[in-house]
């Protein structure tokens, strides 16, 4: 395992190296969660593990807690272990970008910053984000909404992510008695491909704006896998397809559309229902991050992502000021080239520290409303309801 060598940044770099060096493929995150808890405690945070296996690290408020800012990262990774090494100031390893870099940056910022009385900061290391069920985020979202939330995903040090598309997956299968290919009957694959063509035609009619080329505003389709088999008696054809959805089309709407054009002989199984979610550019979290990026000498780049994240899970449930932020190039997510520049990582910690401090100050200026004084609620809901 590599060790940090620059004395100014030893603590923060070592936390990141330790997290990346501990494998945490979805479903097997316990060892990495222990590393997260150990580092959190060493940084003076109150650390624990919840019933879902999520790591929690709390910077308690001074005085009575009236508001909480949640820094929501995830600790699991996709499979594919990579050698962990630092080469020319760049840390290579699975999860370096997605999303242990952002998670470690959250931990360091939470321990470094100064916030007004009454504001608590909580870092969450959620499990299972890379699965279609996202169990860690679904467990957490049942809690009371925080005053504000930053999701830990790579946006680049000068990027701020304001929205993620929705998603739906469908597994389709058609089986029939085998017939000779010289005969008149279509094969199972012919039937399934004809069905897929009808799905594509229906989707073109569903496109909210057929003229737009912006992917965020279009339904995207991908055949993720297809298979045929024939045992001499029964032939079958199957395919798994994925849909990336714009704000205007819900997974339920698309499922209904597809079911309506599918003959009963084709078996369908839908999974991964996730609604698209977008916050406003005027959101206080977006503004505080953008302002901090400018203070660090950059120009903020607001981004819309065509993938999904825990942003989609907690954003609609909490309806609080929210954005996603973190160091690293998301084009390296899930790839064998996954790596993160340590200077960028350090810079993102400074930006997070500054952004959270200004956000906390802004929250503290607003007195909780009568009937809304329960802890963690956003005073006066600083932003209007995020645009959909």
């Amino acid at each position, binding site marked *: 395992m590599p060790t940090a060598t620059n004395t100014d940044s030893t603590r923060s770099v070592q936390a990141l190296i330790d997290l990346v060096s501990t494998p945490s493929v979805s479903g097997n995150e316990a060892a990495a969660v222990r590393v997260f808890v150990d580092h959190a405690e060493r940084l003076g945070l109150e650390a624990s593990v919840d019933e879902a296996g999520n790591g929690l690290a709390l910077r308690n408020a001074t005085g009575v807690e009236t508001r909480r800012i949640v820094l929501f990262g995830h600790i699991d990774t996709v499979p594919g272990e990579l050698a962990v090494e630092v080469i020319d100031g760049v840390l290579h390893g699975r999860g370096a970008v*997605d999303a242990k870099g952002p998670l470690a940056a959250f931990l360091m910022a939470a321990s470094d910053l100064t916030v007004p009385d009454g504001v608590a900061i909580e870092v969450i290391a959620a499990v299972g984000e890379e699965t279609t069920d996202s169990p860690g985020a679904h467990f957490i979202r049942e809690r009371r909404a925080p005053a504000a939330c930053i999701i830990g995903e790579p946006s680049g040090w000068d990027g701020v992510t304001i929205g993620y598309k929705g998603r739906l997956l469908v597994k389709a299968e058609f089986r029939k008695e085998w017939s000779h290919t010289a005969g008149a009957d279509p094969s199972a694959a012919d039937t399934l491909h004809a069905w897929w063509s009808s799905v594509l035609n229906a989707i073109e009619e569903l496109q909210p704006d057929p003229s737009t080329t912006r*992917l965020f505003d279009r339904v995207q389709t991908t055949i993720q896998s297809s298979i045929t088999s024939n045992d001499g008696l029964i032939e079958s054809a199957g395919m798994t397809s994925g849909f990336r959805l714009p704000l205007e089309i819900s997974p339920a709407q698309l499922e209904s559309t597809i079911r309506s054009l599918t003959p009963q002989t084709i078996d369908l199984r839908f999974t991964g229902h996730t609604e698209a979610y977008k916050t406003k550019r005027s959101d206080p979290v977006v503004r505080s991050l953008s302002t901090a990026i400018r203070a660090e000498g950059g120009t*903020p*780049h607001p*981004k*819309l992502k065509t993938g999904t994240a825990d942003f989609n899970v907690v954003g609609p449930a909490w309806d609080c000021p929210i954005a996603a932020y973190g160091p690293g190039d998301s*084009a390296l997510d899930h790839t064998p080239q996954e790596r993160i520049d340590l200077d960028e990582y350090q810079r993102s910690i400074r930006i997070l520290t500054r952004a959270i401090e200004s956000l906390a100050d802004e929250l503290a200026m607003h007195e909780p409303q009568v009937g809304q004084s329960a802890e963690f609620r956003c005073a006066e809901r600083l932003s209007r309801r995020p645009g959909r």
Partner: protein
Amino acid sequence: MTSSTQSNQETIQAPCPECEAPVAFSRSPLYGEITECAACECELEVTNRSPIRLELAPEVEEDWGE
């Protein structure tokens, strides 16, 4: 980039850098605040508070990442 201010009628406004229409605020805007010009619908960012300076907000980019 353009700027202006607060009149005697306590109207806080500044001209839009795109179309020069007045962009009004109900309160003193925050640094970094994003607002929209009602006339030309372009998104503007407050880059100075006193006097108020408005610039075109950065374009929203797309990224395929999770």
